[in-house]
């Protein structure tokens, strides 16, 4: 019995909680519901034309709203120092992209160029 408990505890199964598991399964359902929200029902309807046209501005707005605060804010406050590796990493990445735009690997290069500026500043200088 002790051996069994030891074996289970290696995998964390001794403190497995069905409620937590149920919560996680329901969170996956929330993912499905939010991502399919406007096309779950079969009823026919269309977005008004102005909304359909306006949607072309949603993807870039969504990306910008997600990442710009990740680059320019620390713990909910706008950064007030130039000694922040994220600024230079993002600038280096964007510079690489516009230099190589049109190439199939432009985004991959953005990641590599950005990280090669970010990591030395972040790890080396603790910016």
């Amino acid at each position, binding site marked *: 019995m002790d051996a069994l408990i030891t074996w289970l505890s290696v*995998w*964390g*199964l001794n403190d*497995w909680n069905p409620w*937590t*598991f149920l*919560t*996680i*399964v329901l*969170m996956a359902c*929330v*993912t*499905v519901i*939010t*991502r*399919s*929200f*406007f*096309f*779950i029902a079969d009823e026919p309807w*269309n*977005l008004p034309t*102005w909304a*359909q046209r*306006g*949607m*072309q*501005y*949603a*993807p*870039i*707005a*969504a*990306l*910008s709203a*997600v*990442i*710009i*605060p990740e*680059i320019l*804010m620390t713990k909910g406050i*706008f950064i007030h120092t130039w000694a922040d590796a*994220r600024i230079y990493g*993002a600038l280096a990445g*964007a510079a690489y*992209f*516009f230099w190589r*735009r049109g190439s*199939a*690997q*432009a*985004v*991959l*290069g*953005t*990641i590599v160029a950005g*990280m090669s500026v*970010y990591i030395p500043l*972040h*790890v080396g200088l603790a910016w």
Partner: protein
Amino acid sequence: MFFSRTQRRNPAYRQGFMEMLTVAPGIAAWGLMTGVAMAKSGMSTPDVLAMAILVFAGSSQLAAIPLLAAGAPLWVILATAFCVNLRFVVFSAHLRSYLMHLPRRQRVTAGYFVADLTYVLFTKRYPVPGTTEQERADQMAYLAGNATINWLSWTGCSVLGVVLANYIPSAWGLAFAGVLALTGILCSLATSRMRVLSAMMAAVVAIMAYALPLKLNILVAIAAAVVLCSVLESYLASNVREA
């Protein structure tokens, strides 16, 4: 059929797969660090693995972890996940006209896999919904190919992050690779003045409204940018007609 063999044989499947592949290292690094964060949250390993494999929504996972640890009621956790995911509700309105030709079960399957980058790359590649049978088949194949590599790199690396949590210090800042992947895509979308304006408006609003709970600043920022650009566009169009 979504994810069927015919779909995988369509050249657009490969195209979607390859376009996402160049972004995948960023997604992978981000997934890895999310896995590390989940493993260090005090949840049991089976729960962490279940979350890494099933939920497939990084921001709602990170929002739920402290609530689970604090023993928050179920409905609070689900309501939080819903609010943090509200931007996907906006995306689903956009994608509706692309997907309504599928039966419901397939639409919902597709919906589960349409995370941020799949949505962005898909609407970039196909600015208007398909009208012929062939166009629709190509679009769905692209979507499936793109989603496949996104799911594999995100989920695979989350699991890896859970397993290797004690060997990967978050001080390395690997998660920044995810920000850079999105930066690259953001730059690739900046193809017109109006789109640049949309990005700038969204950035300013997202920062100013950052104090809002549940990441609602992102939703407010998208709404502000879309409304500003739509109004400006129709204003400019009416000026051209009068001139």
